[in-house]
């Protein structure tokens, strides 16, 4: 008979407030197999855990039920607690009587009755638990970082500095992401190049980092410590081993194309480096616009190239490598405000631009060498209007969330504008100024002192008048209608996830929230981890944030990876499927449904009824199996069962619920 100890947590008053603990304790004492019931203010606290350990010794308990908060919160804590007791960490069940009972049912009578049911279910299940033991999984000590923005760069550098090889995959021709496009960064007003460029060069020169530019992850199999990742390296049409990056081909290339990097403000060639300080600092050929491909003419670059590094016959290459850990840093994109805000001209007015375009204009290495000019006529604008929260905090037309960084880069733009344009006027329409970082509010105060006029209200409409733009808004503080005729309008638009993040999330089993941001395991407990072991998040892929947070999160994710690589081996998940050989008829249905290809059919020799018989049975690779249980539901004769969630345990739980 099992000797079950049940520990009821008050969780302060979180549970005790709407669940009658004494009545719950009385009812629990009646349950078959229960030999000891104890109530405690905080089970997860040190005294709480100590009480459990002590009662295991005093009363010879061999199974534990803890009625407390969600197992997703402290199942790991209580399992760790059991490692130094005589009870196997998996002889434990948790009844969730907080998030799914006391917090959601005001009526104490109904709440108590439900709590009793939940505890009875947990006791019935733990009665059928069996001790489980972990086994060791080897770790491939190489990391994969997806996304070459500042977050990816920082993470790659930290891991490489710790001595582990890293592959940095970037979809664009060069790493650098959005940060490298910026002019200055708040709050210190360092120029972005002074921070980003050196890091990019470190990455470029680092012996442990291999950059795969113009590449995307295509296929992933395996699990933590042993991911097998196939990466598609798109054709660059240039042999990087020979190319010296001299740029001769770029000069002579006849076809001009609008540069995505310069956000349409300038042109680039068909063979191009996106920007001067690009890393890898070698050009690629844009097949869609290169006349050799489109009209089979030209080929100037091939003729001129001194080291003949041009390869028109280049093709995509598929590289498959083993990785122990993955950091997803796919970054963000600004929303396409033109399709959302017709009242701001829907993109028809050339001088109504978004923040990144303004960054290119103000950037010294930008198309205008840092002179603030209007994209339409190149004249210097005297009056600029900046509109905040365009698409953010706007659940009806755009995104419901706040994009966090725009208040600060808005203030930065105002400061830079007033700095560069002598008698410039800068009007900033805002809803709330969110400057909550270190030195942020002081930065905002300086901008006010520079003479920026902050008007609390949204701009309702912009329409051109002559070469000016009339912005009509309402100042909600003085509740007066305000019209400003501006030469230039900068919209601080909302951030949204990179379009490729959805596919990356699907490949690694990382779910996305309603807005498409990759979901972290737990906002406070495990902010940089995901629910897929061995896959971590860094930067704006996880949600809008500014550069300081991105870098901090990147180093945190890198620390997690380095932490894992320092282990000799990983502990495997013991809650995996097992095959009852006698009962397996070898039909192979389970092989079709296993997402991890963890089941294989094997021909075996068995002695049955005193006759040697050869037959096929299913065999499970305990390393690959992640314990999802899909095979158990496809096996008609229940030859496959999932440890920790066996058929018997589940049926016992259902029976207990219905008593």
């Amino acid at each position, binding site marked *: 008979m099992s000797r079950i100890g049940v520990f009821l947590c008050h969780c302060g008053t979180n549970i005790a407030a709407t669940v009658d603990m004494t009545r719950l304790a009385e009812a629990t004492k*009646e349950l*078959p197999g229960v030999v000891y019931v104890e109530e405690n203010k905080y089970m997860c606290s040190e005294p709480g855990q100590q009480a459990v350990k002590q009662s295991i010794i005093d009363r010879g308990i061999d199974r534990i039920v803890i009625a407390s908060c969600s197992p997703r919160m402290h199942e790991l804590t209580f399992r760790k607690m059991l490692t130094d007791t005589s009870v196997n960490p998996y002889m434990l069940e948790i009844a969730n009587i907080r998030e799914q009972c006391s917090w959601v049912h005001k009526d104490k009578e109904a709440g108590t009755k439900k709590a009793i049911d939940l505890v009875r279910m947990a006791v019935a299940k733990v009665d059928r638990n069996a001790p489980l033991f972990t086994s060791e999984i080897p770790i491939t000590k190489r990391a994969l970082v997806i996304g070459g923005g500042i977050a990816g760069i920082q993470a790659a550098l930290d891991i490489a500095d710790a001595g582990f090889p890293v592959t940095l995959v970037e979809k664009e021709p060069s790493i650098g992401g959005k940060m490298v496009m910026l002019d200055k960064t708040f709050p210190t007003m360092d120029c972005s190049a002074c921070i980003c460029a050196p890091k990019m060069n470190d990455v470029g020169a680092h012996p442990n980092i291999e950059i795969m530019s113009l590449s995307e992850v295509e296929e992933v199999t395996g699990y933590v410590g042993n991911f097998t990742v196939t990466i598609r390296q798109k054709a660059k049409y240039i042999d990087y081993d020979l190319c010296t990056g001299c740029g001769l081909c770029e000069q002579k290339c006849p076809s001009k194309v609008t540069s995505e990097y310069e956000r349409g403000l300038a042109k680039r060639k068909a063979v191009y480096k996106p920007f001067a300080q690009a890393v890898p600092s070698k050009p690629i050929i844009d097949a869609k616009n290169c006349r050799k491909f489109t009209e089979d003419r030209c080929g100037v670059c091939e003729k001129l190239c001194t080291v003949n590094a041009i390869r028109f016959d280049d093709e995509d290459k598929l590289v498959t490598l083993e990785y122990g850990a993955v950091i997803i840093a796919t970054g963000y994109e600004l929303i396409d405000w033109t399709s959302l805000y017709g009242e701001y001209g829907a993109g028809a007015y050339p001088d109504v631009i978004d923040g990144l375009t303004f960054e290119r204009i103000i950037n010294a290495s930008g198309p205008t060498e840092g002179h603030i000019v209007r994209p339409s006529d190149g004249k210097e604008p005297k009056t600029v209007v900046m509109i905040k929260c365009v698409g953010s905090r706007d659940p009806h037309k755009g995104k419901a969330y706040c994009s966090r960084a725009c208040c600060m880069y808005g203030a930065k733009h105002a400061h830079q504008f007033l700095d560069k344009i002598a008698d410039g006027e800068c009007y900033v329409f805002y809803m709330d100024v969110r400057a909550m970082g270190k030195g942020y509010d002081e930065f905002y105060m300086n901008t006010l002192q520079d003479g920026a006029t902050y008007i609390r209200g949204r701009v309702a409409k912009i329409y051109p008048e002559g070469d000016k733009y009339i912005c009509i808004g309402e100042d909600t503080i003085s509740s007066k209608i305000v019209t400003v005729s501006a030469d230039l309008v900068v919209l601080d638009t909302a951030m949204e996830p990179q379009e490729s993040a959805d596919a990356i999330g699907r490949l690694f089993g990382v779910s996305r929230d309603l807005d498409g941001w990759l979901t972290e395991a737990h906002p406070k407990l495990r902010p940089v981890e995901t629910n897929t072991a061995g896959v971590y998040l860094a930067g704006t892929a996880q949600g809008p944030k500014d550069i300081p947070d991105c870098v901090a999160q990147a180093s945190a994710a890198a620390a997690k990876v380095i932490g894992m690589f320092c282990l000799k081996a990983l502990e495997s998940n013991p809650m995996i499927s097992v095959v009852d050989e*006698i009962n397996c008829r070898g039909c192979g249905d389970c092989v079709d449904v296993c997402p991890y290809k963890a089941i294989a059919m094997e021909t075996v020799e068995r002695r*049955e*009824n005193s006759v040697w018989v050869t037959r096929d049975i299913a065999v499970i690779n305990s390393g690959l199996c992640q314990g999802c249980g899909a095979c158990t539901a496809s096996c008609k004769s229940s030859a496959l069962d999932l440890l920790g969630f066996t058929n018997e345990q589940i049926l016992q739980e259902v*029976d*207990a619920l219905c*008593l």
Partner: protein
Amino acid sequence: MILKKEKLGSLLDMLAGTATVLVPTAFNAEGGSEGGEKATGFLPYQAGSAVDLGTVKTTRSPKDALLPQTETLYSYEQRGEDVTLTETVNNTNQILFGVRSCDAYSIACLDEVFLTRTFVDTLYYERRLGTLIVGLGCTATERSCFCTSFELDPAVAPGVDIQLTDAGDGYFAEALTTKGTEALDAWKPFLTEGTKPTPAELEFTFKLDTAKLGEQLKTMFEDPYWQDLSMKCLGCGTCAFVCPSCYCFDMSQNNKGSEGYRFRTWDSCTFVDYSMMAGFHNPRPTKMKRLRNRFMHKLCFYQERYGNSLCCGCGRCIELCPVGIDISRVIEDVERVVAHD
């Protein structure tokens, strides 16, 4: 005394007042899926139920009334440390009306097993005491009937309390036991004077010589005949469950939290787990061993212990075996196999 056929309904109504009257009735109103095939059994009589005394043999035998397919042995309840057991008491008061000779012979076999040889099965005993069996002589045979091969007389059912013999427009009722005579008094108002008619001459499609069957079977225990025969067998339980004389049962329990009951339910020796023991040891692991055991028990082992064959020749298993394994052909084959080697 003669019971006129038109009085049968009112007799049954009267009897139904005193006890549960089980009469042959079709229970699948919609008939079988294969056209008009009817499935019949001994169902409690209610006014207006489709009584069908014409059925030569019912699909479900009267065994149901004495050894129900599932029967609770006792129930238990645990309160804290102590457990209380409560026995099941079933005061049966039923009349099996229209039992053929083959079924009556089978009931006699069940009586041997459950009531004799030192151990008396109390549940069966109570039921048997509370049961009045009214035999009904056959007036027709089906192709698979071969009760005469076991020296049974289709007109007189062994061990019945009252024997009815068809007399054209009525049934001649005679009491064969004291219980029968008492019961017959109650029938008086429905009976009229009449002489016992000579039972109709029935012709059977075949008759087998089963005299030396037992010994012959013993000699062919290791014969490969059983291997080919068992290849056809599916290992289902149809033959055992429709057979009027099969009595094997399995025991299990159904518990709900800290209370429940233990029950017994029919088992078939052809099932894989019939003789499965703890640790997956099975003395009869293959279909051949199980099927051979079925025929050996029916025609040889039972005879060694009780003196008569356990097969009454009703032919239900011949009709209903999914693959047409025919006990009468097996009996014929025994002649051929034994003569051969």
